[in-house]
């Protein structure tokens, strides 16, 4: 997030696109709703009429996967009408001409046709976002989980730069991150192309710095593999040893049958986890780890805030902290790592090696933590990025993007779109929430959310078990008739193994990030004929 949660309740206008915040980030949504009570405006762009959409001043129900066409059309109107921030564009950005040339092709007429919303609604949206400044843009996986995910993200940034809504309080581009420490895992360099602090592995000077700090030579310079490539490597033999730490890939990745074939192909699989999962079934070695409240350490939230995690009780049996396990393996390769606690790892290594964290030390994290960048020890941390239009790379670069449809679109055989996501009472594959007293009572099984119109066409009753099939697989699942879902769409989550949406989802990826297209594939629904 460029900005912070504490700005939400003061914001004047929001555009929430591809985010079901009330279920996926409930507490963040409360601040947004507080702003609405104080008179802020809300535009929700989402195929589903979810709770937040029902509270919105304007809900724009675009078709799944048409975000770029919609955002480009907004920019078309803003430029054609002269409603953009000319001063910001002139002084803080480059390549406006390229953007203008691209979006000129996206007339509201054209976008209305692609997106399935009235042309006047697109103009109305443009008028509204041009009339209140700043506007805060929030998105979640509805933007990223597409084959065009990177371009979707670029388009949201283009829009906010065009409106001059970057580098100001209560503005910005704000992806709400899904997991408690997904920001932190990125920051720490658990990525194939960067060291901690986003320092590129391809940079010789940076490699030299890490070689010195770690007391090794010849760190690898080539970018490594991304998860989908690793998984494919298990089958073709390129990857022979696979180490999975705290992930339940067998349920979370698209096309479970393919994923399980890949995991079963692993020559040597190590799983380090707190529970046996669908993934540990394929392991050759399973290492028991300490969980959340059995650790001292830090998490970094969506707004770049590094906060403490503290120990409440000891891990069960012989389970050990994860950092300890990695250290023991390093020792067996002849490397003696000095740090012997999370604090020593952070204070002596991470904050020394990654400039953004230079000023973050454990003794400064006792209260509300610190938001990076925080380069030196007397730095107060950074609430919002790019202040006064100063971007990391100097000027903000407009990157024009063209719309492409999802890889698999409905056809005669599979006439509906399946889109997936998360529900409030559970978390991902329920390894944790499924083992908490009461949460299964609140939500005990998966449903396929369908529109009353599609249900009527098939003679499906609310609560009836139906079959949902795609080219990858099929599940039997209860139908949930709801006006939140538009006709032509099926919506499911991946919390329950048997009716997990990932039996159906399409393993196709964004070219750059290799994020899978969880938000769009083609399915059909059928009544299950009873034997009687």
């Amino acid at each position: 997030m460029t900005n912070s949660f504490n700005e939400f309740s003061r914001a004047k206008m929001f555009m929430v696109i591809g985010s079901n915040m009330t279920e996926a980030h409930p507490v963040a949504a409360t601040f947004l709703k507080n702003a609405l009570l104080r008179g802020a405006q809300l535009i929700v762009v989402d195929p589903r009429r979810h709770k937040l959409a029902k509270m919105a001043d304007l809900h724009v129900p675009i078709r799944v996967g048409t975000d770029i066409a919609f955002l480009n059309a907004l920019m078309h109107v803003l430029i054609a009408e002269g409603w953009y921030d000319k001063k910001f564009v002139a002084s803080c950005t480059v390549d406006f001409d390229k953007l203008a040339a691209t979006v000129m092709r996206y007339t509201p007429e054209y976008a209305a046709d692609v997106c399935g919303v009235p042309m006047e609604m697109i103009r109305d949206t443009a008028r509204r976002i041009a009339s209140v400044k700043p506007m805060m843009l929030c998105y979640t996986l509805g933007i990223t989980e597409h084959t065009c995910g990177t371009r979707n993200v670029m388009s949201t940034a283009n829009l906010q730069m065009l409106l001059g809504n970057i580098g100001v309080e209560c503005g910005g581009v704000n992806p709400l991150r899904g997991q408690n420490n997904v920001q932190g895992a990125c920051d720490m360099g658990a990525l194939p192309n960067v060291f901690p602090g986003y320092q590129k592995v391809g940079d010789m000077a940076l490699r030299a710095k890490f070689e010195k700090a770690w007391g090794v030579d010849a760190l690898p310079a080539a970018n490594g593999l991304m998860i989908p490539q690793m998984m494919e490597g298990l089958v073709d033999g390129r990857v022979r040893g696979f180490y999975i730490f705290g992930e339940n890939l067998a349920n979370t990745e698209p096309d479970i049958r393919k994923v399980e074939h890949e995991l079963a192909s692993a020559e040597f699989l190590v799983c380090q986890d707190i529970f046996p999962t669908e993934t540990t079934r394929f392991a050759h070695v399973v290492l028991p780890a300490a969980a959340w409240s059995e650790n001292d350490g830090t998490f970094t939230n969506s707004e770049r805030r590094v906060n403490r995690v503290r120990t409440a009780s000891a891990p069960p049996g012989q389970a050990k902290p994860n950092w300890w396990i990695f250290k023991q393996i390093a020792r067996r390769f002849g490397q003696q790592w000095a740090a012997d606690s999370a604090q020593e790892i952070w204070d002596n290594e991470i904050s020394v090696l990654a400039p953004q964290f230079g000023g973050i030390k454990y003794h400064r994290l006792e209260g509300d933590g610190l938001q990076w960048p925080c380069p030196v020890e007397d730095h107060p941390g950074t609430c919002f990025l790019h202040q006064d239009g100063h971007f990391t790379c100097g000027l903000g670069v407009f990157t024009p993007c063209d719309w492409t449809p999802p890889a698999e679109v409905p056809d005669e055989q599979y006439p509906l779109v399946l889109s997936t996501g998360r529900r409030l009472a559970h978390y991902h594959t329920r390894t944790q929430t499924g083992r908490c007293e009461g949460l299964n009572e609140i939500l005990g099984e998966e449903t396929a959310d369908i529109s009353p119109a599609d249900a009527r066409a098939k003679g499906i009753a609310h609560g009836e078990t139906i079959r949902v099939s795609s080219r990858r697989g099929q599940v039997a699942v209860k139908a949930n008739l709801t006006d939140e879902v538009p006709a032509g769409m099926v919506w499911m989550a991946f919390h329950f193994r048997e009716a997990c949406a990932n039996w159906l989802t399409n393993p196709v990826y964004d070219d750059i990030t290799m994020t899978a297209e969880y938000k769009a594939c083609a399915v059909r629904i059928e009544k299950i004929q009873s034997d009687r």
Partner: protein
Amino acid sequence: MSENVFTLNGNEVDFQPGETILEAARRHDIDIPTLCHLAGATPTGACRICVVEIEGAETLMTACTTPVVKGMRVLTESPRVVETRRTLLELMLAYGNHNCAAGQAGGENWTAYQLKAQEIDGDALCPAWGDCKLQELAFRYQARADRFVLTPDSPPPELANPMIVRDFSRCIRCGRCIQACNEIQVNRAINYGYRGSDLKVVTPGDFPLANSNCVFCGQCVEACPTGALVDSKARYRWRPWKTEKIRTTCPYCGVGCQQWLHVQDGRIVRVTAVEDAQPNQGRLCVKGRYGYDFIYSEDRLKTPLIREGEGFREVSWDEALDLVAERFKEIIAASGPDALAGVSCARSINEDSYQMQKLFRAVFRTNNIDHCART
């Protein structure tokens, strides 16, 4: 000297324009008791416990709703104020089931009173014992529960959901839960229903919470000053005098809410939000508040395991780690370091991800390290 001054208990103090008496007094470390006042919500003056005496005003005024005016002379603990507060408390104690008998404690001090109660800890003691604002104030103002005729018994508590016990017999109709639901979390599941002495906090249609818009965020429980709303999972397990509070960060979504873990005999027995903390400002959701007990599941992995046929064999750490190192060394020797790949965890602490990428880069010599950020 600032123009904006008023007299508070005989001392001239400043105030900010628009500030209420309560806010100004708190800023000057004068403790005015409140029951219905909820930070971040509109003051209602419903409970009237914060009444103060203002020179020239005929009646006592509620400090939470009355703005300070220049030159105002305010007394926060005058005999008239104290007597009024005691009467208000005695009326509240008479209405419903408040059997903690605060007023019967005689001249004993608070600690002695609590110690005595701990000896009879069990279902007989209110689940909010020791964490009840009404009880605390009844003791402070020596209010007696038996001054007024007690109302007849209320209906039994609502237990028809897994998270929140609603015991209307302990409700003082202060409305904090309603404000927490409507103004803080904005879930709009509850409000006042019925009229007069039948006044009650209800869902639309007065159905149980499980059949309403309630999302079980538990903010109402956190707001309740008495034992009317209690976390089911903590009921009769959590006792404030037995617990240690540990601050931590929620393990679920990327908001990073700050929590208090209430730890009793080495186990988390309750989770509440850290007031005024960033980023969540005293709020949690259903998972953050009630999704903590997975760590005590019997399913936890407790021993390293090595595959043997279709199953696993329990082994020592040394045996497991030796095997991992040996196999990885063989693979590196035969196929090079890029034949290894690893996926880190977006749920675990920063330091774990740092160590894992260091293991892959500095020890194995491959950049084949990733995690689920891309999905």
